[in-house]
């Protein structure tokens, strides 16, 4: 899931973005089946976004904030945490929509089958 060094050039990221926007099949510049932007967004989701959602969620709890008041300080209070959490929800929904669109573009059944069997099928 980690992008390789060779992938993280401006040129490559820009090319990947252009491919996405033009709805063009991905060129794979590394050995992985995942594109650069894809890897980046997945990493951000799992390592940044999900912890963020968990923390902004828990920061709204009168019970958990009694045990960990630092959560209130982190986000500037319960209401701020709530706003951030809601904004995060919208972003999450956007992620899912884009995710589903990309899967559809890559072939829904092939991707789902690969997800279950672990075997890639290379498209012509």
């Amino acid at each position, binding site marked *: 899931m980690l992008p390789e060094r060779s992938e993280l050039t401006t040129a490559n990221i820009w090319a990947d973005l252009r491919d996405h926007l033009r709805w063009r099949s991905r060129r794979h510049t590394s050995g992985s089946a995942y594109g650069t932007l894809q890897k980046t967004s997945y990493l951000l989701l799992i390592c940044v976004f999900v912890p963020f959602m968990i923390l902004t969620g828990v920061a709204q709890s009168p*019970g958990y904030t009694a045990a960990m008041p630092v959560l209130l300080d982190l986000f500037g209070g319960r209401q701020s945490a709530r706003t951030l959490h809601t904004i995060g929800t919208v972003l999450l929904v956007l992620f899912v929509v884009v995710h589903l669109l990309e899967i559809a573009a890559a072939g829904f059944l092939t991707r789902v089958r690969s997800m279950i069997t672990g075997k890639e099928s290379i498209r012509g």
Partner: protein
Amino acid sequence: MLTMSSNRLLLSGQQLAREYSLSDVADPFPTWNQTNPKNDEYQRHAAEGFRNWQLPISGLVARPSALSLDQIKGLASRTQITAHVCEQGWSAIGEWTGAPLQRVLEAAGGVTAAARYVVVDTYDRWYEAYDLFEVEHPQTILAYRLNGRDLPRGNGAPLRLRVERQCGYKNLKFVKSIRVVDSIAGIGKGTGGINSDAGFHWFAGV
């Protein structure tokens, strides 16, 4: 169950919910949901300024009794500036002054060994049950003052229960009576609260 276990594990030191300063207080304090119970007995007492009102304490206590508002005010009081966190999404900070529920129960001789829950009934037909861990918490008080003034009717006069580590709906307004029991099974739908009977969580510490 999982939430409550993890929550209680973290709170085993009976830590206090954050207390704020006077400058953080919302004044006037929001009034939501029921603000004036249509109960005849309540209206009569409210009209008299709760002069003749009494809080019955029954069930598994050494000396079932009834305390007047003056008697409750005569018990050791606690003032706390805390946030009321509503399930509906809003929160507001208020300065509450009241008698710790623990002290009120002690005025009735304290709970017996068999006691497990304290059930609070209100004038607008709400009830909620609390376990002893919550009852013993220093911030669990029966508040009779809000923001330096007598608790207004809209905010739950004569007494409003504060349970600072749980959501707003456990902080009952218009407290009418207290019963100490060993089981919540036979009360309401047996879930331990009018809100949990309706599908909300009995334990609102999340």
